[in-house]
């Protein structure tokens, strides 16, 4: 019963967010702040995530494809395909669920329990437009960009790992990557990143916006936001694969 109640509240919050998304003047400044926080400030961690994911993928794929009759370029195609279709979007999103989702939930939760959201409402502000809309919009806009960053640095990491470990030269890696490159894979990754961005920012906003019960309540809402975001990202990943591939 509680699940349905929560789902109803979540849908209501989203409805309010969509309805108030026309109040651009209210959330313009916050949107710029969020674009910086979600996008620009996440680039270092996303670069690192991409580099190590690509590097580990290359070394492990090399280990698994021992047979001499398999061309070395296959490693490049497997690594780049895996990154573009799956890993760059999913692993980055799981990292961002912790970084971005936890921050959003804690910020809004603290504002809720310290009555700052009530203060906004009492001044005549639409608090959903002021707080929720810019966060979700920034997530929708920045996650696809972060996916591209993760993909580029993932492939770069894969090339460097291949060269440094002596398992395959950069040219072989790129040959394989080019051979099996389909533009649809990138589009599929972008769609995933867009959906994951929506899930993480909307779930975190929902949990924070309705936080109750002081510091402990904020902690609980942050934990729930992070865990639920991760679960929904994995679930959405599966559904998108079933529907779009």
């Amino acid at each position, binding site marked *: 019963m509680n699940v349905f109640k929560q789902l109803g509240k979540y849908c209501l919050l989203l409805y309010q967010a969509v309805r108030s998304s026309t109040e651009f003047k*209210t959330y313009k400044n916050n949107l710029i702040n969020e674009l910086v926080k979600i996008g620009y400030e996440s680039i270092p961690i996303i670069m690192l995530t991409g580099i190590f994911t690509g590097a580990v993928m290359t070394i492990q794929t090399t280990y698994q494809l021992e047979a001499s009759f398999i061309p070395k370029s296959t490693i490049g195609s497997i690594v780049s395909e895996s990154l573009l279709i799956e890993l760059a979007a999913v692993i980055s999103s799981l990292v961002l669920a912790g970084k971005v989702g936890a921050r959003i939930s804690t910020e809004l939760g603290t504002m809720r329990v*310290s*009555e*700052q959201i*009530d*203060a906004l*409402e*009492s*001044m*005549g*502000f*639409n608090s959903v437009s002021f707080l929720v809309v810019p966060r979700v919009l920034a997530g929708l806009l920045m996650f696809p960009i972060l996916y591209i960053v993760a993909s580029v640095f993932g492939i770069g990491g894969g090339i460097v790992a291949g060269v440094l470990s002596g398992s395959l030269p950069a040219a072989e890696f790129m040959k394989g990557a080019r051979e099996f490159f389909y533009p649809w894979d990138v589009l599929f990754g972008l769609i995933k990143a867009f959906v994951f961005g929506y899930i993480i920012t909307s779930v975190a906003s929902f949990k924070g916006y309705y936080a109750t019960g002081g510091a402990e309540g904020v902690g609980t809402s942050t934990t729930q936001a992070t865990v639920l975001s991760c679960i929904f990202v994995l679930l959405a990943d599966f559904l998108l694969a079933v529907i779009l591939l």
Partner: protein
Amino acid sequence: MIEIQNLKKSFGDNLVWSDVTFDIQDGETLAIIGRSGCGKSVLLKHLNALLYPDEGEVIIDGKNIFKLDYVELRKVRQRFGVLFQGSALFDSISTFENVAFPLRYFTDQAEDEIRKNVNEALEMVNLEGVGDKATAELSGGMRKRVGLARATVIKPDYLMYDEPTSGLDPQTSDEINDLIIDMAANLDITSIVITHDMHSVLRIAERVAFLDHQELCWYGTLDEMCESTYDPLVKFIKASEYQIKKNAKENI
């Protein structure tokens, strides 16, 4: 005038209060008193529709605010200033920006005018020169005063105070009480004060509403309250007097 008619509120199965009916006259200072947890703050949040009741009406200038659409409701809310219990200052911006916040979003004032109005508001609460400070650097009393400056900077018709003196030492409490009196006199504002501090009530209130046992069980002028023989009210006042004496003893 604000007319509160037959309000009833519950959270789930817990009834907060029912059949709450009283008026708030323009220009007066009304204190809503009662024990902790009796629903005073909940009642306050109904006056500008931050919360909606299960039943009943709050009528401001002939309009039931619970039936207004969002645009109209926002206009009504802008007629209220609210000083929250914990001040509810935005900690991501400076003290100056906190006070300037409603002016930036709800008026077309130029930067110079905003600066002038904010400085005046800070001056009115005796906080000149703290504009550049982060809100985290302010003491509890200063935070309350900044909250008051923010609440009054847009010149509201009604000013609501939620436990304005809670958590403050007696001297700072007195300063806040003085400010409440000054605000009411200088800005011609209707004040609604939620408190369980009888010392404050005796200083600032013209009328008193007493919440107890899930209802508004007493309502009258300050003089009537002082002469009342209504048992729960007398007990509440005596308990508060005992608390005032105890606090005074502890402060010696």
